């Protein structure tokens, strides 16, 4: 592969991608196609990235079912589902690109389910009435991740060539550095990002790497909440580290709680929305003291509460709404499933698939039913499953820029797309804040991750082309200094000999965040949460490092991740405290209305040092930055030029797509 620049030194002039989930792998693939060699870092072998967990599917308005679906409707439903907090041009770009993305994945060999005619099959997901979700059984994320992993592996075998077409000895287009932990970026004197420092989690060596640009594709921060549906590696540590170095963090408070998961001591395991997309129904017994097993309770004695309250979208209302309803049923009404053994109404509702033909379940949902069967020890083909909400996804993340095109979408290949406020640092995937506003619709994340990668790759290639000086010509001293800084930090961790156990502190953090900073938020309670975070920060300075080993030392690494999780927890909690309204996943009973006048804006957080060991958050409404060499003023205004904000209601069928479909609807009025 001919690289687009000179490689006179006979050393490939690489860029760096951190993270090999869907977003990172797509970015890498795009970079390679543009002739840019890449160093790809990942905590785990990329094939084990968290994306592997995704179950239900990926959205694209391919409209193969004769329903009249279109990218325009996909755009509107995404924006409406996100309660109008997303900038609309990137959402338009994503919705328009979606059919092409699914076709590309199909060409890569993803075993998507098929219709009898041999076409891709689509199913329903939340927040829409259309069949828009392509799927590979109920392990879609795994299948997409593998397909992209395979494409990137192919690039691992391709030589880097110089401008004359001669292979650079020993240099392949992709060099993978797996089991490496990202510690921070390296900035030159002007503040431009020119590389990273990372730690080899086998040998514990700390090393600085040069990269003409760096893209963080490091996923979400679910583990800040202790247990969630996320993989245990999702501590958000990389995003926190970049934030500590000056990257803007946007809409941190917008955390999605998924309505249907199975509780567990180590993890809350998801039962995908696709269960409801295929006809699964949520209910509780009408008699709150009903002692019978779920399957023995007759139809007329069941309360299908979502269907009753939201006849338009029923069990497929967006997640924020479903989670609030489930929570209220269990916590406020005490009508969760009764457990004769404990003589209590448990925090559980039924998710019932038992009326769906077994053959259909086997072909379309086996993956999740297997999870239920294994982890609960009950047969979901015969028994209604028992589920409860769990923290699932972060709409918020690193702030990223975009360049708007004439038609209202994105200019493909603009170096501004997916760029953070630190020149040369990009972000893509769940780690960015860009596509979902205040609530993400199901099956839009796999899409946004891949789409962000499709934008980030060309953006970085363009940025690199426009560079006056390569990171590979920056003096070595810059890298030595950064390496030394991180090495000293690590030595300090190894020397910590206090009495706190970092894993126990994390458990405390998770319990507080989960209880007080999720579905319902209250300012007085949030005040206490923030106080607790401060105390935990103090105590975290007093941990005893659990492990001083010089090989694969996970204990010392966890001390570092804990400190970064505390920083993100503060961003989340303080953002929640500040936003006095209810919008999407952010709900305050004391401020039930959405308040567009005051809060139709992005929360922008900058890191500051607080007192002693504590961090502090500075919220800004605007900020000057250099992006791709140009001065830009970042503001918190939301671009709503494509779909005018209106009240968000799911009682009536079609309300979410009324503007695009032209359906007359009473809720076209602007809110408040």
């Amino acid at each position, binding site marked *: 592969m001919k690289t687009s620049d000179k490689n006179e030194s006979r050393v490939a002039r690489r860029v760096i991608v951190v993270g090999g989930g869907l977003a990172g792998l797509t970015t890498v693939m795009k970079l390679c196609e543009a002739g840019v060699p890449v160093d790809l870092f990942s905590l*785990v072998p990329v094939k084990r990235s968290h994306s*592997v967990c995704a179950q239900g599917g990926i959205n694209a308005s391919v409209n193969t079912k004769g329903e009249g679906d279109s990218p325009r409707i996909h755009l509107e439903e995404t924006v409406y589902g996100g309660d109008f907090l997303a900038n609309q041009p990137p959402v338009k770009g994503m919705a328009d690109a979606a059919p092409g993305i699914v076709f590309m994945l199909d060409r890569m060999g993803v075993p998507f389910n098929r219709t009898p005619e041999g076409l891709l099959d689509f199913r329903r997901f939340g927040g829409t009435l259309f069949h828009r979700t392509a799927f590979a059984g109920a392990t879609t994320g795994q299948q997409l991740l593998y397909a992209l992993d*395979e494409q990137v*592996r192919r690039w691992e075998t391709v030589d880097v060539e110089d401008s004359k077409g001669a292979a650079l000895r020993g240099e392949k287009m992709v060099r993978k550095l797996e089991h490496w932990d990202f510690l921070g970026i390296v900035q030159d004197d002007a503040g431009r990002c020119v590389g990273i420092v990372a730690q080899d989690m086998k040998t514990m060596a700390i090393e600085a790497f040069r990269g003409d640009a760096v893209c963080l594709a490091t996923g979400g921060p679910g583990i800040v909440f202790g247990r969630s549906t996320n*993989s245990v590696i999702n501590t958000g540590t990389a995003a926190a580290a970049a934030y500590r170095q000056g990257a803007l963090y946007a809409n941190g408070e917008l955390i999605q709680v998924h309505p249907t998961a199975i509780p567990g*001591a180590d993890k809350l395991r998801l039962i995908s929305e696709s269960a409801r997309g295929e006809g699964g129904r949520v209910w509780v017994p009408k008699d709150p003291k009903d002692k019978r097993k779920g399957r023995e309770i007759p139809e007329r004695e069941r309360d299908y509460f979502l269907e009753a309250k939201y006849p338009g979208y029923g069990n497929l209302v967006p997640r924020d709404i479903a989670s609030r309803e489930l929570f209220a049923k269990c916590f406020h009404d005490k009508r969760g499933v009764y457990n004769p053994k404990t003589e209590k109404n448990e925090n559980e509702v039924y998710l019932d698939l038992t009326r769906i033909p077994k053959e259909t379940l086997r072909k379309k949902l086996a993956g999740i039913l297997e999870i239920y069967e294994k982890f*609960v020890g009950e047969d979901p083909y015969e028994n209604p499953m028992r589920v409860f909400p769990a923290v699932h996804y972060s709409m918020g993340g690193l702030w990223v820029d975009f360049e708007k095109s004439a038609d209202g979408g994105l200019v493909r290949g603009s170096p501004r797309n997916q760029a953070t406020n630190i020149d040369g640092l990009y972000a893509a995937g769940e780690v960015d804040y860009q596509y979902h506003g205040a609530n993400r619709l199901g099956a839009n994340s796999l899409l946004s991750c891949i789409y962000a990668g499709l934008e980030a790759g060309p953006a970085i290639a363009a940025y690199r082309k426009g560079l006056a000086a390569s990171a590979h010509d920056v003096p070595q001293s810059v890298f030595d200094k950064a390496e030394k800084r991180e090495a000293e930090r690590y030595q300090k961790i190894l020397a910590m000999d206090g009495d706190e*156990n970092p894993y126990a502190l994390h458990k405390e953090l998770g319990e507080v965040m989960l209880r007080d900073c999720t579905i319902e938020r209250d300012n007085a309670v949030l005040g206490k949460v923030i106080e607790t975070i401060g105390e935990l920060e103090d105590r975290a300075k007093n941990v005893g490092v659990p492990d001083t080993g010089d090989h694969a030392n996970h*204990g010392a690494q966890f001390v570092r991740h804990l400190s970064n999780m505390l920083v993100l927890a503060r961003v989340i909690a303080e953002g929640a405290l500040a936003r006095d309204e209810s919008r999407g996943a952010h709900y305050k009973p004391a401020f039930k209305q959405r308040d567009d006048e005051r809060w139709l804006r992005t929360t922008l957080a900058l890191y500051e040092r607080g007192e002693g060991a504590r961090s502090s958050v500075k919220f800004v409404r605007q900020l000057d930055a250099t992006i791709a060499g140009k001065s830009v003023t970042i503001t918190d205004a939301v671009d709503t030029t494509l779909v005018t904000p209106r009240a968000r209601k799911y009682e009536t069928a079609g309300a979410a797509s009324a503007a695009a479909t032209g359906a007359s609807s009473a809720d076209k009025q602007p809110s408040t």
Partner: protein
Amino acid sequence: MSTTRTVRLKILRQDSPSKPQTKRWEEFEVPWLPQMNVISALMEIQRSPKTTDGKTVAPVVWESSCLEEVCGACTMIVNGRVRQACTAFVDRLGGGETITLEPMTKFPLVRDLVVDRSRMFDDLKQVKAWIDLDGSHELGPGPRQSPANQEEAYPLSRCMTCGCCLEACPQVHESSPFVGPAAINQVRLFNLHPSGKMHATERLESLMGEGGVADCGKAQNCVEVCPKEIPLVDSIAQVSRQVTKHMLFGWLLK
């Protein structure tokens, strides 16, 4: 009912590959939890890393990520059987007895329960386990495929590269170059795909020499241990037939 239930674990540990002298068994006792799996037990040890003889030690090191048996990371030997620790439930492991945990033996040790499985990813390069895409730009939909084709391919594509099949295979050992069932199964998968087929011979040739499909000893342990119930023996048989056919008649078709 007053005494709290506990779970005992006996774990084979070693600090690093270069320190074989640190190889040792350590025993731990942790509080029992409902629906407890081996991972939750290991997490309890992290929060209070003390052996049963009262010694404070470094927490046990293991690899894990998804905790729902889809990433393959937490594979280890539990009570003598190779499997994922996340789906190894304490109550279903023969209640009351001490649970033993050991690292897999067919891969280089990293530390404690962590081994280095990178050879499995390298093998995927050798067998060219990918579709030769012209590029990721828009070229319209992929080839049409029958539901039956999808239903054959999908189970094969659920391989998590966890290494159970290699661990259980008697033909895979230090002095053998045998590539093992996982990579052979990938060849079947890609040779089944309408565009993947176009490069079937390259994949078959990568399995023809030493360490290739002919090295399978037909012990059939692989299917026994595969957590995703991938029909590995079928895959090996099919690929083996494809290879034989290619060896006999391939030159005729060239």
